[in-house]
């Protein structure tokens, strides 16, 4: 069974924000809600690195652990979804999330999107709405997964830095890429883990 994951290759991310607008385009999230953002470390300094961050669809999701109304669920493919009919917009999940993924609309706290909003891995919602029905699109955005497609942010990434899909596939591709790079610097994650600087 697939387990869906994102991976952002910091050696390739150029902070072009293509992933951010692809998400806006596909899910028509309102101004102020950013399911995906690009974070730049050491901006303007030697060693500057950017990575694109959204909900990481954690296996043991801290948001789900703390949610007082238990609105989170994990699909068979490992996608963490939350039910906007259950969500009370309390913001507790944002305390728990290590990535700052939960978003809260600026206005209309209890409008259609008035509760917490986050990346759905372009899988729509967990509720009773039919796939890609107007109701589902309105509440959660597009359901690309139901159409056999992957999240648009990764599909449109300008440098193929952002990968999405079955974690096995993502790792295979990334591993092959790393091998191909030969003596090139590894990702910041690698350097951090093994204290290697090159």
């Amino acid at each position: 069974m697939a387990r869906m994951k994102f991976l952002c290759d910091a050696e390739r991310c150029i902070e072009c924000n293509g992933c951010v607008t692809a998400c806006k385009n596909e899910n028509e999230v309102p101004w102020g809600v950013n399911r995906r953002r690009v974070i730049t470390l050491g901006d303007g300094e030697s060693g500057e690195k950017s990575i694109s961050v959204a909900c990481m669809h954690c296996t043991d999701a801290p948001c789900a652990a703390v949610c007082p109304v238990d609105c989170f669920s994990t699909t068979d493919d490992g996608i963490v979804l939350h039910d906007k009919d259950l969500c009370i917009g309390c913001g507790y999940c944002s305390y728990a999330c290590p990535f700052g993924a939960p978003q809260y609309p600026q206005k209309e706290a209890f409008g259609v999107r008035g509760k917490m909003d986050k990346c759905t891995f372009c899988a729509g919602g967990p509720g009773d709405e039919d796939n890609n029905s107007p109701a589902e699109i309105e509440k959660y955005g597009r359901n690309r997964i139901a159409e056999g497609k992957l999240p648009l942010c990764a599909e449109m990434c300008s440098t193929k830095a952002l990968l999405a899909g079955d974690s096995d596939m993502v790792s295979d591709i990334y591993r092959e890429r790393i091998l191909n790079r030969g003596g090139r610097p590894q990702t910041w994650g690698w350097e951090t883990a093994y204290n290697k600087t090159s």
Partner: protein
Amino acid sequence: MKLIRKQSNDENNQSSGVGNSINRRAFLKRSGIAMGTGAASTLLTPGRMKKAHAASQVATGDITVKKSVCTHCSVGCGVVAEVQNGVWTGQEPDFDSPLNLGAHCAKGASVREHGHGERRVKYPMKLVGGQWKRMSWDDAINEIGDGMMKIRKESGPDSVYWMGSAKHNNEQAYMFRKFAAMWGTNNVDHQARICHSTTVAGVANTWGYGAMTNSYNDMHNSKAMLFIGSNPAEAHPVSLQHIFKAKESGSKMLVIDPRFTRTAAHADHYVRIRPGTDVAIIWGMLWHIFENGWEDKKYISERVYGMDEVRAEVANWNPTECERVTGADEETVREAAKMMAENSPATFVWCMGGTQHTIGNNNTRAYCAFQLALGNIGTQGGGANIFRGHDNVQGATDFCVLSHSLPGYYGLSDGAWKHWSKVWGLEYDWVKGQFSNEEVEGDKGKPVHTMNYKGIPVSRWVDGVLEESIGQKDNIRAMVWSGHAVNSQTRGPEMKKAMAKLDMMVIIDPYPTHAAVMHDRTDGVYLLPACTQFETYGSVTASNRSLQWREKVIEPLFESLPDHIIMYKFAKKFGFADQYCKNIQVSNDEPLIEDITREYNKGMWTIGYTGQSPERMKLHMENKHTFNTTTLIAEGGPVDGEYYGLPWPCWGTAEMGHPGTPILYDTSKTVAEGGLCFRARFGVEHDGNNILAENSWPKGSDIQDGYPEFSHELLKNLGWWNELTAAEKGAAEGKNWKTDLSGGIQRVAIKHNCAPFGNAKARVIVWTFPDRVPIHREPLYTPDRELAAKYPTYEDRKRFYRLPTRYGSIQAQDFSKDFPMVFTSGRLVEYEGGGEESRSNPWLAELQQDMFCEINPKDANGNGVRDGSMVWIESPEGSRIKVKAMITNRVAPGVIFTPFHFGGWYEGKDLVDKYPEGTEPYVRGEACNTAFTYGYDSVTQMQETKVTLCRVKAV
């Protein structure tokens, strides 16, 4: 509200039924990775975007897929649009496109918003008593037309200025240039003047053509890549996909820039230079190359003319002098030179950081000389990869929406006018009669007919309105901006003065633009809504010279119209519609795009826009997936052996089937297969020296030596004349490869594997330019008086492109004490050009909400500026802008950087109230060019927007 947990294994809940609907192989295809895996080609052929069973559940109708090309930059990314009931409802990645392989940057990923267009100009409007009033198209054309006819009668056709656009597709660009010709003026220009005009002039004068020699894809083959004044991570983000492919395969990446850009963050080697010292750094690098004998001596002797003169100049640029001028130390410069010399082939990329200077043409020629010294031109992985800016700035340049030439760089001579008159099916005398029949004192002091006299360029239209002694009967009295942002031109206060003086301003654009609001006029301003390129169709030329065909995605929104319809309406009003479209079918005021293509195919022999028929281009678009993503050659399929988009020159007629030229001047292929040599553009000898190629010719050539350009005489002398058909002979008699409308001369030359344009050496000295050898000259506004004395600028000129042009008289004044900071500008990834379109797109606007300046911590603290606070940037010409300060080491001490995409503010004031209701962009800000100053290139009138002086004051 149901307080029960949804069970993910509930059979009724298939919302995430991935396991059922998609298998592992499909995932691999769609997982967004193609480059650097060694499996690129297999990943390029995923199944078409299939709307699975779920599609029927979307209640808005059947999905039609339309294919277009992104309208933001010159990479040429394919756009796949899903349309339901005429509404653009979805955008999918174009994995089939060999140029972008599905990828988009922020701008490309947001183009569907064009189908919303909330902030667009919705119907024609005019400013009456300070209020915007709606009007009909007919009334607008009549009223504007009558006003122009009056000006024409009183002041002549040159008093109406036609500003065209790199946003037009090829057909519209061609029709725009033709329109200006038929109105009877050379006062027509577009963004290329202020973007890469110095490139086109410098590069074409070095080896024949002024375009990017290789392609983004070909960079996969590079072993070193040098970027100077170029920040593709923000300006051409999708190109980084190709650049990283090379880098990850071991290519070295070097960046030379005053700013530590986002591109520099990925480089192996970064060289920071003082703004405006490009010639100095290149000669400084070449100094090491010559010193160590790293140059390609064989290549130079066979294919380059004048290198000894360059060598003599380079000798002055020893490490001490180089550091004194550029600020880069010996070790850093030597390392850069060594990297480029040792890793072959090496490619060289430059953009606006190099071109926008008073010595822009020197910069671009120095870059060419550097690459020629290393033998990097005409090879895979090498080249001068000049990244163009707008999506069709290459095409609009090729069609010469330019004040100094007719389409195809034919120039403005009588011969050029006769050639195009013939293509248009018109009498030369009729065309001439459209012009004001008079001679004026030209640039060289001799009388010149207005028809043959270079018009006023974009950068100087303000002076065309304001200057008293100019090379035409009267000043400019009406300005038409068709897809053009005035905030991309300098000297805000004078522009405002010029706008006040005009009789009439006409803005043809999807958005109101900065021009609609920056003036204080209350009357005589018209807004005509043009639609975007997603609401029409036609061809567009990417930076690598490939032509792509766009389909129409949606019908024009609101009352907007495609530009070619608007042009036709004006032609009708002015009474030359029949001549304008003599060879072109017109229905409902719309000239048929395909007929326009066929017409220019008949005339664009110089640069080979003759083989790209609409049918061939469409076939390429249908078979995108069959092209190799490195070489761009089709491997099998219906267009087997052709290069993607038939990159020009695509010689001869479409029937001849030339595959296009993927790499210019590449002698390793036959001309018939897309090979070439340097063009014999500058004669056969100079000062008694042979300037034709020696011991070098394209593969398989029947002439194994240098040769001049082909003409009827050369064919006869070679004994090849009888290979022409009888019909070709009739057309070719007395003609050459550029003017033979049958294409016979080109066909026969290529049959013998000869280049129609001859086989010569490239030249690194240009005896017709102000500086024969490229030399360093300090900017007009320089912080260093000592260097201004040592490397002074030019003398003032009385008349240059019809206008007085100042150099020395400005540099003579010392502003460096009161204005100690260097001011420079550049791009942001989220916005483009003047920015009106992208700042009106909420998906983009949200990401950059403030106009800002980058300032080094030392300067910030020295001027009492806090991060995030507002500051005034004041120019030595008395203008000022109010922007937010961003404190960063990205810029060096003493340098201020601002992006150039903002508008809608003027000297501290938000002009939001002046926009027509509902059309104000989401984000507005100060236009940096308000505070940029005087200064124009000595060959092309490119404006100097990369160096001036300023001071910063906390608000």
